[in-house]
């Protein structure tokens, strides 16, 4: 009896928890179809497809999306490269200072974003000259690479730790040199881990608000655009863009896991 109750209470609770998790995502999408009166888009008025029809009718919105995508692409590329090299070193080699290095890499993840952003702002102000000051897209890029490096290292390292070293030994036994072994055996095996880290870095960068807020100056990324318009009222087009981001991200994850399952 107690068991039955426990099981069904858990089931009901899980259902509620899932609604709690998904409700805001649903609301964001729903209000992209709203036809609000005035500037604020907080109450449901009526259904319309108008905002999807002229997505970029709002001045500055398209530019902010382009800036965000550009920063996300470049910061992902650089952070994934630097992070993967460091993760390889941490997993594959024993050396003095390895535990200390791991702890050091973990620190930025344990620092609140506001402090990361604030300290970078202070650095740029103290330098006080271009390209660091006045703040611009370049300073946002530096900030995003900084927080992404640690995320990439942690992600790639987690994927690498299950790696079977004997495959590389087999490659060497068959006469491959170190370089060939790396590109023909090691790299293809760790590629899914690198791709996962890259995807994480990209989505963290494109959605970052707190650190960007401190390092952006007059540059407007998509989250900065949302923040700026939150005071006067977020136009439904912003909800539409948010919904597109969500669908693209979910599809990327779905395709990624499908490809990996097929390989396995």
């Amino acid at each position, binding site marked *: 009896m107690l068991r039955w109750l426990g099981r069904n209470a858990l089931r009901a609770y899980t259902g509620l928890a899932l609604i709690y998790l998904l409700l805001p995502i649903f609301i964001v999408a729903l209000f992209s179809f709203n036809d609000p009166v005035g500037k604020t888009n*907080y109450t449901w008025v009526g259904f319309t497809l108008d905002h999807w029809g002229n997505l970029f009718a709002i001045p500055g919105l398209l530019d902010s999306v382009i800036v965000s995508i550009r920063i996300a692409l470049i910061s992902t590329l650089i952070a994934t490269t630097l992070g993967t090299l460091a993760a390889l*070193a941490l997993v594959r080699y024993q050396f003095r200072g390895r535990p200390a290095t791991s702890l050091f890499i973990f620190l930025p993840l344990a620092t609140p974003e506001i402090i990361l952003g604030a*300290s970078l702002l*202070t*650095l740029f102000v103290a330098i006080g000259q271009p390209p660091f000051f006045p703040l611009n897209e370049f300073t946002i890029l530096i900030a995003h690479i900084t927080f992404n490096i640690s995320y990439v290292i942690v992600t790639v390292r987690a994927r690498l730790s299950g790696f079977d070293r004997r495959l590389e030994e087999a490659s060497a036994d068959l006469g491959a040199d170190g370089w060939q072994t790396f590109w023909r055996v090691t790299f293809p095996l760790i590629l899914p881990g690198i791709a996962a880290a890259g995807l994480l870095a990209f*989505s963290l960068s494109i959605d970052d608000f707190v650190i960007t807020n401190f390092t952006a100056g007059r540059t407007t990324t998509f989250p900065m655009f949302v923040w700026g318009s939150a005071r006067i009222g977020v136009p439904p087009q912003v909800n539409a863009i948010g919904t597109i981001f969500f669908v693209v991200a979910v599809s990327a994850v779905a395709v990624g896991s499908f490809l990996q399952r097929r390989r396995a």
Partner: protein
Amino acid sequence: MIAFLRRRPGLLPLLLLAPAIAWLVAFYVYPAIQMLQASLWSGTLETGFAFSWANAATYPEALGRYSDQFLRSILYAAVSTLVCLALAFPLAYTIAYRAGRWRTILLFIVIAPFFTSFLLRVLAWKTVLGDDGFLLGPLKAIGVLPEEFRILATPVAVIFGISYNFFPFMVLPIYVSLEKIDRRLVEAAKDLYAGPARAFQRITLPLALPGVFAGSLLVFIPAMGDFVNAELLGSVQTRLIGNVIQSRFLVNNDYPTAAALSFMLMAGILAAVFIYARVLGTDELESGIG
């Protein structure tokens, strides 16, 4: 270069690490030192800043002036962490032991919020919790709640927002540590005549502690620095230390005060983590992170 490395194989890991470490030293460590220095500045952005140890008085001044916001941040972060823990544990338990083939999809739903913009999620709750929104509107219409009842612009809304946004950080580590538990231990406890409640209390709960510890830190630390939830869902009465740091830096350009507050915030967080680790034991800390 390859020939050189072949003679000195010990150098290869250092070479691989060098770019990432150099980057973090330049843009993580050095800015922190710079911020420490900035907290001892005096002056303004227009006239320029001058460094002097005598400006250390900024620290007690800032702490005295913003002690309310500091205490509020600690309170909200602690309550949010407890709320997350209470909500996350049953969900993580279900996913780990009861979900069967639904496990992957449930885990995906847990992280799904991260695929929507953070700010839009917070604004969505503003819609739901609004004074005449989906939740309160109908309850007021049928007279369950008085007309003037509100959630928005109260501490409840801010704590709700913080809890929602960091909830997945609590679920995932608890799930990971529950999933690692060898279920034969629970069976053994039952063989030894422990009831389900006692088996849970003596086996499952202690073994899930590393996840609880990691999850609590992953919620508490960002919650201490929050200003977005407080700004969008709260009011002047719910301003947190994050709001003060944000406006001192970006609106008032009062870098010395803002830098001093940032340092005290970081010190407060480290102290809280240290105390928490002492209470729960450092073994949990290490296995929670590792």
